[in-house]
C-alpha cells in the first residue's frame, strides 16, 4: 500500500450473482461490475470488473452462497449439486461443493398449520446470520489482482439466480 495516502480497513462483503439459463452448467462470477450487462447493486457491488479498484485490497474470511428466498426446493437442490472455486490471479485458492456452503440468511416461514398452502422454498442451510462458512486462514486479494469465482454443475440447475458473497475486510483509501 502506498504511504502517500491513508487507508482504512472496514468489514465488507463482495457479492455477485448470476441468473442461469436453462442449459447453463457453469458460470464465472465477479467478472462484471455494476452497470455492465445491466447489473445493478441488487446484483453485484463490484465497481471494477474482475478485480478491485485501486488501491483496494480484500481479506476474504468466508463465503456465503444464496438463492432468492422464493426459490423452490427442487431448484435449490439442483443449485446445491455443484461446485465453487475461487481464483485469485491464476491460482485457485478454495474449492468446495456448493451443498457445504450456506446463505447465512433467508426466509423463515411463520404460518398457521391448516391450509397454509402448497408452496415450499429451499435455502442454503439454516437462515441464521452466524451460518457462514468461515476460513481458518484468510485469502488475500491484493491491489490489481484478478478475482474470479467459477461455479459448475454436472447437470444444469435450470433458470434461477444464485449469489456468492465473499465475507471479509476491505482496505481502501481514506477520503
Amino acid at each position, binding site marked *: 500500500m502506498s504511504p502517500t495516502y491513508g487507508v482504512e480497513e472496514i468489514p465488507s462483503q463482495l457479492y455477485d450473482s448470476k441468473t442461469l439459463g436453462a442449459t447453463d452448467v457453469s458460470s464465472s462470477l465477479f467478472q462484471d461490475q455494476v452497470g455492465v450487462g445491466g447489473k445493478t447493486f441488487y446484483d453485484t457491488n463490484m465497481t471494477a470488473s474482475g478485480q478491485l479498484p485501486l488501491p483496494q485490497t480484500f481479506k476474504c474470511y468466508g463465503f456465503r452462497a444464496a438463492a432468492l428466498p422464493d426459490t423452490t*426446493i427442487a431448484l*435449490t*437442490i439442483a443449485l*446445491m*449439486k*455443484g*461446485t465453487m*472455486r475461487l481464483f485469485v490471479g491464476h*491460482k485457485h*485458492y*478454495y*474449492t*468446495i*461443493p456448493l*451443498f*457445504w*456452503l*450456506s446463505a447465512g440468511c*433467508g*426466509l*423463515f*416461514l411463520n*404460518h398457521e*398449520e*391448516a*391450509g*397454509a*398452502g*402448497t*408452496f*415450499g*422454498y*429451499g*435455502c*442454503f*442451510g*439454516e*437462515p*441464521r446470520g*452466524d*451460518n*457462514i*462458512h*468461515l*476460513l*481458518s*486462514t*484468510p*485469502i488475500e486479494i491484493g491491489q490489481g489482482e484478478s478475482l474470479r469465482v467459477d461455479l*459448475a*454443475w*454436472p447437470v444444469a440447475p435450470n433458470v434461477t439466480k444464485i449469489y456468492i458473497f465473499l465475507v471479509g475486510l476491505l482496505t481502501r483509501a481514506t477520503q
Partner: protein
Amino acid sequence: MPDEQMVEVISHIAYDAVTLGASDKEAYFFSEQLGGGGTPKTLFETNMEDGGKFASNSGFRMLGLRIGVLPDLTVALAVALSKGFFQLFIGQKPYIELPIFAMSVGGGLFINSGDSSAGTTEYGMFGVPHQYSVAGLARPLTIDPGQVFSAKMTWPTAPTACKVYVGLDGELIRQIQ
C-alpha cells in the same frame, strides 16, 4: 512440511465422494484423483490432485471432519448410511474412528413450506444444516507431503445406491509458484 520460506498456507477442504452400488458395504475415499476412477471424477466428486496423497510438496493440517450427502437424500438412505463405521488412516495407522451417525455435514438444504399440503417428500441429513455443525479436532492432524492417507466407510448392511462424501477441513501448505 515444505520449507516454510517457500510456502503459503491456505484454508482448504480436501474432499472426495464415492457413489455406492446397491450391494456395496465398503467405500474407500481419497484414493482417486481428479479425472481418475471408472467414471472420471470431476470437481463435483473430488479436489484431490494426486490419488492417496496431497500434491507433491504440499502438506495438510487437518482441523475438522465432515460427512457430505446430496441435499435430496431420502430419510431412509440417510438412516441406512448412518448405520456404519468411519475410519481415517494416515499411513497405515487409523487416526479417527467413529460410527457414521456421529458425523455431521455442516451445511445442507433448509426447507420452508406450508405444512398442510406441501407434499410428502422428506429429506434426511447428518445434523443441522449449519456451519457450526462440523466436528473440530481437539488437536490438528498433520499429513506431510507424500504421506499416504485414506478414509474408509463400512456398513454391516449395504445402504443401497447413493453418493457419500468425506471432507477434511484444514489448511493446505503449498509451494508458492
